[in-house]
C-alpha cells in the first residue's frame, strides 16, 4: 500500500503499530504528527485487509474491508503520472443520494484531494481517481488523462472497498451506520467450506444408499398383462444395396513405389536380359 503514498504527497507515514494497542492510540499519533486525517491499514490472518478512514480528532471514521487489490506493479496498467500531481476526484451520482455515502464522499474528498500549492505536489492535474458504487461496494480506480478530449489510461492501483461500519468518533464512538450487505471474510470462508462439506456428505450418502440397494434382494414384480398394449411393432428397415459403383478414391501420391522385393526382381530381370 505504498502506492497510495506515492499518489498522495500530503501524507506522512508512521511506524507499524503493535497489534495489541488500542486504536485510540492512533489519534494521539495523529496529533503528534500534526495530521487531521488518517488512513489505517489493518491486516488480519495474513489474508484479510481492513482499512480505516478517519477524521482524526473528532471523527467520523469508517471501516472498510479491502478486496481485489491490484498494485502499481501490475504490468497490465499502462498509464503513468507525475509523482505528487493533484488528482481529480470523480464520484458516482449515488454518493449524493444516501446520507452515509454523502458522508463518505466528504471524507474521501478531504483525505484524497491534495491541497493546492502543497510543497511536495506538482502543479499539474493529470490523473483522476474514480469512486463508483456497484454491488454495494465502492470501487476505486486511478486513470491518467492523456488528451484533452478525455482519453484515459489506467494507472492503478485498483481496489474495492466494502463498507463495514461508520463511527461517529475517530476510531470509536457510537455507530452511525452498519452495512447490512457486509459479510465478514471469515463467515464467507466458513460458508463455502460448509457447502463443500455438504456436497461431499451427500455424495457419500448416495453411495451408501446405492450399496444398500444393491445388496437388497430384488422384489419380484408380477407380470402385467396390459404392459405391452401400447407397443407398436416398429417398421423393418429396408435392406440397402448399393447398386451404383462408388467413386474412386483419389491417390494423391504421384508415383507408385514398388515394394523392395519387386524392385529387386526387376533388376534381376534386366540383368538377365543384358
Amino acid at each position, binding site marked *: 500500500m505504498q502506492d497510495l503514498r506515492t499518489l498522495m504527497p500530503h501524507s506522512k507515514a508512521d511506524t507499524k503499530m503493535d497489534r495489541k494497542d488500542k486504536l485510540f492510540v492512533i489519534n494521539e499519533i495523529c496529533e503528534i504528527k500534526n495530521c487531521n486525517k488518517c488512513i489505517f491499514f489493518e491486516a488480519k490472518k495474513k489474508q484479510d485487509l481492513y482499512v480505516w478512514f478517519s477524521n482524526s480528532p473528532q471523527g467520523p471514521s469508517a471501516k472498510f474491508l479491502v478486496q481485489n487489490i491490484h498494485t502499481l506493479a501490475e504490468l497490465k496498467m499502462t498509464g503513468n503520472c507525475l509523482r505528487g500531481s493533484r488528482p481529480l476526484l470523480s464520484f458516482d451520482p449515488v454518493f449524493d443520494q444516501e446520507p452515509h455515502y454523502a458522508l463518505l464522499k466528504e471524507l474521501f474528498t478531504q483525505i484524497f484531494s491534495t491541497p493546492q500549492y502543497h510543497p511536495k505536489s506538482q502543479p499539474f492535474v493529470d490523473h483522476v481517481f474514480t469512486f463508483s458504487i456497484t454491488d454495494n461496494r465502492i470501487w476505486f480506480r486511478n486513470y491518467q488523462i492523456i488528451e*484533452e478530449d478525455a482519453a484515459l489510461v489506467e494507472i492503478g492501483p485498483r481496489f474495492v472497498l466494502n463498507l463495514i461500519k461508520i463511527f461517529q468518533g475517530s476510531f470509536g464512538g457510537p*455507530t452511525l451506520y452498519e452495512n447490512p450487505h457486509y459479510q465478514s471474510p471469515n463467515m464467507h470462508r466458513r460458508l463455502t467450506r460448509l457447502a463443500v462439506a455438504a456436497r461431499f456428505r451427500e455424495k457419500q450418502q448416495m453411495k451408501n444408499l446405492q450399496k444398500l440397494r444393491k445388496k437388497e434382494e430384488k422384489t419380484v414384480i408380477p407380470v402385467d398383462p396390459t404392459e405391452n398394449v401400447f407397443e407398436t411393432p416398429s417398421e423393418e428397415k429396408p435392406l440397402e444395396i448399393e447398386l451404383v459403383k462408388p467413386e*474412386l478414391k483419389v491417390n494423391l501420391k504421384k508415383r507408385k513405389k514398388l515394394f523392395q522385393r519387386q524392385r529387386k526382381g526387376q533388376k534381376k530381370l534386366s540383368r538377365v536380359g543384358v
Partner: protein
Amino acid sequence: MSLHREYDTIHSAINHLFLAKLGTNETLIHPYAVKKMADYENQSSSESESEESVITDKELQAAFSRGVLKPGLNVVLEKHQKALNNVDGLKQCLSEFKQHLAWVERLDVTVGQAPNVMSSASYPTPDKVTVDPEDDFQREMSFYRQGQAAVLKALPWLHNQKVPTRRPDDYFAEMAKSDQQMQKIRHKLKSKQEAMEKSEKAKQLRALRKYGKKVQTEILQKRQKEKATVLNAIKKYQKGLSDKLDFLDGEQTPPHQGKKKGDSGQQIKRGPSAKRRYKNQKFGFGGKKKGSKWNTRESHNDVSSFRANMAHNKGPGKAGKKGSNKRPGKKMRQKMKSRT
C-alpha cells in the same frame, strides 16, 4: 407472550414426545428444539433454576391447549439483526466536519457516465443500474466512462481557474511509476503484440495450405474423369459401337487402335451380365459387410433344414461306416493282449 413467536409450528407427534421427555432426557428431543429450549429458558429469567423445566413444561402444555402451538417441525428462524442506520446522526456529523473550501482545493466532481463516447459507439451503452458486477469488461467500461465524464466536466473549470493540466514537454519530474517499471510494461506490450501477429500469420498459412490441397484434389479428380471417358470412348470405338473419332483431338492416340478395327461383328452388350447383376444384387458395392454372415435370431431359430432321420449320424450315408469299423476298443485290445 414470546412463545407465539418462538414456536411457530410443532408437529403434533413430535410435540407429544417433546412434552413427555422434556424433564428427563433431553437427548431424545430434536436438536432444534433443544436449542430453542435453551433460548427460551434464558428469557424466562424469573423462574427458579430447579423448577425451570417443570414450569416450562406446564407453560408449553398451556400454550398448546390454547392453540398457540401449531403442528409441524419447529425450526429456529434466524432473526436478522436490524442494521443500524442513524440518518440524523449521519447528517449532523456531515454538517459538522464539512469543510467549505473553494472547488480548486477539493477538485471533486460528481457525475454519471459520459453520455456517448466515440470509442464505444458499437458497444451498447450500459446503464449504471444495470451494470453486472460479474461482467468484468462492462464494469470496467462503466468506471472508465465515469472517469471520462468527470474529466470532460472538470477540464473547463480547471482552465477557468488557470490550473495547468498538461505539463510541458521539457518538464521532467519523478513519476509515480519508475522508469524500470514502465520499461517492463512496454516490453510486455511488445511481446504480446508480437505473439498476436505470429498467431495470425500461422492461421493464414494454415488456411492457405488447406485451400491448396482442395484445389489439387479437384484437379486430380478431373484428370481421372477425363481419362475414364476417353478410355470408354476408345473401347466403344474398338467394339465398333461408334465410328466417331472426335475424342482423339488433343488426346494421344491409343496404342493399338487399328489392330482390332476389323472384329466389329461382336455381340452387343447392354449393361453387366446376368451373373454380375445377380452378384450386385446379392453383395452390392461397399455397404456394411461386417456382421453380414453372422447368425441372427431368425436364422438361429430357423430349423427348416433340420431332418430328424439324417441327424446324429443316422443318415443312409453313414450306415455302412458302422460295419466297416472292425477294430475293437482299447480296453478290449489290451485284454486280448494279456490273454495271449
